[in-house]
């Protein structure tokens, strides 16, 4: 068993009386997809925020490749190898697809502080960006303005930007959201192949995708991890069933 690439240790976060994250310890091992599921309001987004640096936990640690990054800023974590996609696309809508990908490449190459040569003409940036676009199938749309992309294409671009970073770990917040059945299926296939490159922490509502992809699944309810296990174990867990049904009722 190898060491986890990403782990949280006893993470806690409260908003007033509300405990959004309650002593959460999860980990992500090389080569696996670890999915986090849970009903709305279970604290999934809050957890992701703490892992990626948008929120500071009240207590506990976030470990990236064994290193404590709890006090690091978002950009420091990104530099340390954390690649993230957003539930709601965070893209530069006035820029082209290629420019969005180049932005990621700039982060990866540490090349933002250059003032002379046009970004689009730097071969190292361009190669990296084009490669990422190629992989998600957006190569032909590279010169389209992002605002004119379809919803599905935007999700693809989100993933492409994360790819340009060549991260050591992916954190994906509902990448399937709003995709049609076909789109979901294609992305599922793509993520399936991605896990060998870097493990994926996947937050997703699309249960078909989750059960198809995840090596392990953690269930988050009211900020607490109530169960972790393989797809079959989770499916069989009465606790999980109660939590979901109880919530629905």
């Amino acid at each position: 068993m190898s060491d986890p690439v990403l782990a949280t240790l006893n993470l806690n976060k409260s908003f007033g009386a509300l405990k959004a994250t309650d002593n959460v310890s999860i980990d992500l091992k090389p080569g696996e997809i670890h999915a986090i599921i849970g009903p709305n309001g279970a604290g999934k987004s809050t957890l992701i925020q703490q892992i990626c640096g948008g929120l500071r936990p009240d207590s506990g640690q976030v470990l990236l490749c064994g290193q404590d990054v709890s006090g690091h800023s978002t950009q420091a974590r990104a530099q340390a190898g954390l690649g993230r996609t957003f539930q709601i696309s965070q893209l530069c809508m006035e820029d082209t697809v290629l420019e969005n990908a180049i932005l990621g490449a700039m982060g990866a190459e540490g090349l933002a502080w250059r003032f002379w040569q046009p970004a689009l003409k730097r071969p190292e940036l361009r190669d990296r960006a084009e490669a990422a676009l190629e992989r998600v199938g957006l190569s032909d749309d590279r010169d389209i303005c992002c605002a004119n992309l379809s919803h599905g294409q935007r999700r693809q671009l989100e993933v492409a930007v994360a790819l340009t970073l060549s991260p050591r770990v992916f954190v994906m917040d509902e990448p399937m959201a709003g995709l049609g059945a076909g789109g979901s299926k294609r992305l599922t296939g793509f993520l399936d192949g991605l896990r060998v490159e870097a493990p994926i922490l996947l937050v997703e509502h699309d249960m078909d995708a989750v059960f198809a992809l995840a090596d392990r699944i953690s269930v988050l309810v009211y900020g607490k991890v109530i169960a972790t296990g393989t797809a079959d174990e989770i499916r069989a867990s009465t606790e999980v069933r109660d939590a979901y049904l109880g919530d629905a009722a």
Partner: protein
Amino acid sequence: MRLDEKYLNGLMIAGLLALPLWAVMADQPFTITLVTRAVILALAAVGLNIVLGIGGMVSFGHAVFFGIGGYAMGILAFHAQTYTALELGLFTTDGTKFMPVIWLVAMITSGLVAFFIGLLSLRTSGVYFIMITLAFGQMFFYFAISWAQYGGEDGLSIYVRNDFPGLNTLIPIQFYAICFTLLCVVLFLFARLQASPFGLALNAARQAGTRVETVGLNPMRLKLLAFVISGAITGLAGALFADLNRFVSPTMFSWQLSGELIVLIIIGGVGRLMGPVIGACVFVALEHFLGELTDFWHVYLGVILLCIVLFGRGGLIGLLTGKEGAHV
């Protein structure tokens, strides 16, 4: 009819070359003065366009840098013309009337001030950013008014324009040549900057700050550097403006001037290379010709500005090329 933006830019530069030359031949020196004014205001607004158009920071206090540039020129030339020493703590100077030195001092000083204002202001965003930059502008304005040593509200008169090697700066067309060349250089730098990795990142910071962070870049630092570059350019314009008028006064720090710089950019087109240039030319022309028509020309200026906001998304460049401007 839709114009390509490149042609429009070329046309504009050609116009800025041709009009003053025509004015020399037709012996209309005042036309040259007007175009010089437009070119200098454009230069100041190009500086602002870096933070406003690319970086999305609505600075309502850019007059600070314009004024600092002006006072850098005023103070240096004042000491040079009165042969009095200027004590700067560690060292003493007699001032100077040499333009390149004045420009350098203007740019360094306003860049430094921009660094500190930016450091404090960038903690805020949105309306708060607009207002805190305005507050800094007001502080400098009131400071200048009560700075008796350099004329206070009366300002400083510099009787002879400063020197530039090989040119007689008192001849309008020669001074214009200096300003025009500087504008072209700065426009070129702006274009390079906009396309460079830094420009791309800054542009991204305006549209999606979180995205910039998640690729491992620090939007704060990007914005702060942009603010400093912008301040330095506007400071340079301030020094030229002071030389055009051979005069500096606290009005260079006024919030109306900050507002006017923003107006110039919006008239032309936010984030566009030539937006400030077109805006400045149109503004100076309006000011001049409407002023001849009626004492109440501000009313008409107001109506025109209103129409530009309500119907001309993307400014004049947007109107002519059919492209919208940057969203701020």
